[in-house]
Structures are given as C-alpha cells and as structure tokens.
C-alpha cells in the first residue's frame, strides 16, 4: 500500500476494511501487509485519494 503524505488520519479507510488491517494513529496510519487482502475498498473510500495499491 502506498500512503500519500497528505493523509489526514481520519480512519474512513480503517472503518471499511474487513480485514482490520489499518491502524489509525494520531498522525500516522499503518497498513498491515500480512492482513491486507488487497481488496481495494480503502482506496475507494478515502475522500482525498491518499491510498493506492502498489
């Protein structure tokens, strides 16, 4: 997963991730590559297109 610097850590992506792979911190998000199934839902849900699958 590529996370753009302008991500604002809102958690919309984490909310829809059925694999529970996204950890939202105050000033950072971390995607767990082992849990991630590359379904792409988080990429679509992000209001500002801050995520992309490699």
């Amino acid at each position: 997963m590529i996370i753009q610097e302008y991500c604002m850590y809102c958690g919309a992506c984490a909310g829809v991730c059925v694999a529970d792979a996204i950890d939202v911190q105050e000033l950072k998000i971390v995607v767990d590559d082992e849990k991630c199934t590359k379904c792409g839902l988080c990429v679509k849900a992000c209001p500002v297109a801050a995520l992309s699958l490699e």
Partner: protein
Amino acid sequence: MDYTTDILVVGAGPSGSLAAREAAKNGADVILIDLKSEIGSPKRCAEGVSKQGLIDLGIQPDKRWIARKSNGVRLVSPDQTSVWLSEDTIELPESGFVLERKVFDKHMAMDAARAGAKIMIKTRATSLERVDDGIVVTANKMGEEIKIHAHIVIAADGPGSRIGRWAGLDCNTKFNNMESCVQYEMAGLEMENNNVIQLYFGTVAPGGYTWIFPKGEDIANVGIGVLKTHTDKTAIELLDEFIKNCPETQHAQPVEINVGGDPVGGLIEERYGDNILVVGDAAGFVNPLTGGGINTALESGVYAGIVAAQAITDGDYSKKNLKEYYNLTKENIGKNYDKYKKAKEYLLSLNDDELNDIAHEFVKVDIDEISPKTLVKLLIKVSPKALLKLGKLF
C-alpha cells in the same frame, strides 16, 4: 503501568464523553481514553446539531461552543431551484446550532471529568484481550505501554472503529454504507442567507449531498458526502468542482480541511456483547438520511453509561444483563432510523430531472403550510414512486 477500573471508555468524542459522564454519575469507576493530543481536534464534522436534542440530554447551551444559530434549511435542486424550510413550521433533524466542535467536544469531556471520570489523552488502544471477569485493553499512553483492566468496555471509537471487532462483534461499517466526506471551513463566502443550513442534491454529490453550514457572517463549513458505490470520482474532486461553480463559494478561501467517513447504514445489530457496548458512529448511530450523528452519539452514550453503571452495581457484565442498552437504543433511536433509511433510499432513486420537478412543485407551496405530511403528499403528486417508498412512513 497497569490500571484497574469498572468501565473503560475508548474514544472521547460526543458518544464516549457522555457515556463516561453518565457511568461516573451513576457511581462507577470510569477511565476515558483518546488517542488525540487535543480532544475535539481535528474536527471531522459540519457541526450542525439539534438544539432540543442537546437540552433533552441535560447539556445546557453555552456560547463558547455555539458558532451560529440556524433557523431553517435551504434545499437546492440540480437546476438551482431553492426550497426554503423554516424551523418554525417543520421540525428539522440536526439543526438549530452550528457548533464549534473543537470546543464542544472538550466541554463534554470536561463534564465527564467533573462527574468523576479519569481521562487519559494521547492514549491509544492497541489491542484487547478477554479475561475471566472482563477485558484487558493494551494502550499506548504517551509512548508508554499500559494495560487497563475493566469489567466493561464502551467502544466509542468513531467511524474507523475497531474495538468492537476486537471484542468479537460483527460491527464494522460496510463499504456501501460509508459516506466518503471532505469539507473546507472557508471565509469570504457570499451567502444569500447566512442563517440557514444549505443542502445541494443531485449529481453534484452522488449518493449524498453537498452542504454549506454557516458559522459566521461570511464563514461556513462547505463540504460533501458521497457514496463510492455511486461514483468513481473522489469526494474532494467533486467538492472542488462545486466550490468553483457555486456563486456563494467561488470567492471564498479555505482555512481548514476536514476528511472523514460517515456510516449511514443504520444501527448495527451487534452493538453489545459480554463486557462490551458499542456507541456512536462505531455502532452506526448516524441518521441515514442526513448523515447527522452528533445528537444520537450523545444519546447512545447516555444509555450505555447508565446501563453499564447498573451492570457494575449488579456485578453482572454479561450480554444478557447489558441487553437493556440494545432495547433502549432500538426503541428511542432505531425506529426513527428505519424511516429515514427508507427516505434515503427513495432520495437516491431520483435522477436530476425528478429532483428538479419535485423542487418546482415545492416552491409553489406556502411555506407556512409545510409539514411532513404535506411534503409527502406533494411528493406523491409529482413523483408517484414516492407512494410506494414513503406513503406509509410519515
């Protein structure tokens, strides 16, 4: 370091702070944690709230957190026909005040503290483990790993919620129910009426709407929520287009950007279990039609706080003993949501031409005669499918 408490509330948004306040008021030991360094900031909200809804929960309006009072709503169709509704004639959900949420959320947390809750800021729950008599949550508190042992955990962790899932509940928001939202707080707007909240419908915002919520003479939250099942564009692309084209926003400048998800699928069934209650956005307490969730986040928090404190008194933290929370929220919130959800489905079924036709019919009516019933009658006149979808609801 290890902590022990009766009730741990994760998340100090409106739902968590009210849950903590009520639980503490009812005699329980409460810890309230939030990952943020400043409760309430950044805001992820357009800040429209029902005044009566606050008063009903014992929250006295305070000018420190009210940015502006609104007295009505303007609905704008795709061909720019405006329907003006006044608060005097029709009860409008989530309207009355436009808040300063950064201040409001802090004040709600302060009330929780005054009731006796212990607050830990910059403290992020990182995992959860069930033990014999409760739950142990591991958290990162200012860089230090801590463990909090609680009999009951109240998950108030917002639209990106994970706590309920960690406790084994099937409570995450489905992709097709998550509004993808972005908003600018802007100055220099030229609003025709800066005392009403405005909603723009149609292809400007597929699956949702665009809003302008006034916070001052020329200041407003200008935002959008879209369902990504309805568009390939991103929320920010659509919002930027809107701002460029709307005469009221064309010359305005942003001073803040806010993003977020808004779960509009209605109440999540699995919102309670042994030793756990899920409140606010985390359990879908958002009006499916309007996307408004502040009032119901607060209300769900109150029920959870009361029920959890009672369970502590009973010494019984089982799912069965916590079911009262489910019942209270179903009765007082869920029933209305079912109606709003149907109304939303109907709204989403309309194309731009149909929305325009409806707006044209509405502007002919004397504003004083508008009530939910007359609105539905009118709708059925212009749009026969309204009868099918709405006829029996209102």
